């Protein structure tokens, strides 16, 4: 079953075509890596799928709903986490969980269960009353991810979620992603780190607004005769016409 279906999705800003007729599918429970150099158009594409931006042309369905008519339903069934913002720093850990749970309409009982469960999984039970600002960056990001899936969405969109985090914490972060995928949550993730691309079930690589490659990391490496995703990425990104 596909949770994301995009068909010739295009977004133009004036003369500039940020996203150029991209088509792809993402299966339920899949970890889908969305790669591309800066300015390749991946953020724009992701914003369209999240309902933050309307496409110029093309069709897409997210979580079974049309991106033109069903934005409200889509919002209910997706989670979102961006690198720029993780959580409200002047709110306590449990207050953040409550806030986002509340926004997604969880009941008080659900909220309580979810909070306990989440703090237990993250081994942060003793930090329940700590202000988020006082946590190390890695902890914040793990917490932010857990909060982004607090309402068990069908898909969670992660926009460069591990920016600025050390490799060990990144590894732990990906364990959380695997756990979420096991629960049946589809993960749609953009990243700069090619080691992370290896963790994905399938990756797409965007160049100049188009998707130039889409397959499992293993198949891509075979196809481009490379030993790592790094090489695959560079051999594709080299062709890019536009800069940042």
């Amino acid at each position, binding site marked *: 079953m596909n949770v994301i279906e995009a068909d010739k999705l295009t977004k133009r800003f004036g003369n500039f075509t940020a996203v150029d007729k991209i088509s792809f599918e993402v299966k339920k429970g899949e970890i889908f890596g969305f790669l591309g150099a800066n300015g390749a158009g991946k953020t724009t594409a992701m*914003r369209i799928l*999240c*309902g*933050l*931006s*309307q496409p110029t042309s093309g069709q897409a369905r997210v979580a079974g709903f049309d991106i033109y008519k069903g934005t*409200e339903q889509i*919002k*209910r069934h*997706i989670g*979102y*986490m*961006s690198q*720029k*913002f993780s959580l*409200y720093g*002047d*709110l306590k850990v449990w*207050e953040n969980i*409550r*806030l*986002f*749970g*509340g*926004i*997604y*309409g969880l009941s008080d009982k659900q909220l309580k269960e979810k909070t306990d469960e989440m703090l237990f999984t993250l081994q942060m039970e003793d930090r329940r009353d700590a202000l988020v600002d006082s946590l190390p960056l890695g902890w914040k990001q793990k917490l932010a991810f857990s909060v982004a899936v607090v309402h068990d969405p069908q898909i969670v*969109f992660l926009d460069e979620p591990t920016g600025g985090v050390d490799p060990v914490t990144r590894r732990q972060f990906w364990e959380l992603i695997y756990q979420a995928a096991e629960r049946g949550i589809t993960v749609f993730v953009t990243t700069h780190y090619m080691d992370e691309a290896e963790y994905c079930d399938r990756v797409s690589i965007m160049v100049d607004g188009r998707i130039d490659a889409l397959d499992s990391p293993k198949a891509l490496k075979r196809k481009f005769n490379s030993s790592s995703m790094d090489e695959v990425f560079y051999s594709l990104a080299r062709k890019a016409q536009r800069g940042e």
Partner: protein
Amino acid sequence: MKQFLSFLKKEFYHIFRDLRTTIIMIVIPVVLVVLFGYAISTEIKSSGLVVLDHGHDLLTQRITDRLISNEYFDFYKQAADYEEIDRLFRKDKIKIAVVFPTGFAENVGNGSEVQLLVDASSPNEATSLIEYATAIINTELSEGALQTTGGITPVVRLLYNPQMKDAYNFVPGVMGMILILICSIMTSVGIVREKEYGSMEVLLVSPLKPIYIILAKAAPYLLISLVNILTILLLSYFLLEVPIRGSLMLVIMLSLLYALVALCLGLFVSTVVSTQKGAMLICAMVLMLPVILLSGMMFPIENMPWILQLISNVIPARWYIVALRDVMIKGLGVLDILPEITILFAMVVGLIVLSVKRFKIRLE
């Protein structure tokens, strides 16, 4: 509804966790009222006075006594000559000197003159001093020589503010300033902060409706401005003895309407700028300054060049201050301030329409 309440709670956390800002918001009105009430006063009190009396008769003595006993003047001494007066002016001991010519009493009624020397380095103060002194001298002359002059004596009654207290003027002015300060700056900064941090994106991806975001942002500041309104009214009533002649309820409702205009202004600013600094700058320069300069709080609108008069029409504080004075000081009712209420209300509607049009739901 639950969504909204969760979000509203967060807004209150933001405000009360930032204790410094909250205290500033609560304390600023108190400081301003006390400042305007006591420190900054355009009323003239205790200006240094010398008298140079060449006349040495009963009439000059009586006039001098009358000047001395007045609270506007602080009698420094009898001067011996012009040089001494000059010296005292230079030393800044006195603001005004009164000089009686020789034979003053004999010549009263046929061309006798009193000379007033005033320090006009502060023109407004000088004008007031001349007026006061002239009035005092004339009173003494007309009382003492009523039978000889037989002129017209105007009977003046000062309506609404018989003691000519400044407080009657600035209390409405301070209200107009504070409410703009709290409501527009804080609301716009609050919304723009979410944009700057990137949390606005997360919120817009969530099922939370943008209108809830805006309402939740505005609600706490409306509450704080209500606290401010009450503080200012209490201070001005009990400390500065400014009466509330009209209905208290009307004063509060009018102030809340004005606070609403300020909130909408803040909302509109937040749709125009994208950084907190920008929001603060715009609010301070584009909203605060006109309130102080063009609302009629400091300078009468009637005296402005026509272009400024025209501009003053779009400043909400102008209408609010007029209406508030009408209700508080003159004791007028709701019907008398209907035009002002209508204008303020129209401003709310206009600003909301503008903001909603500009509020970027899709953050393009």
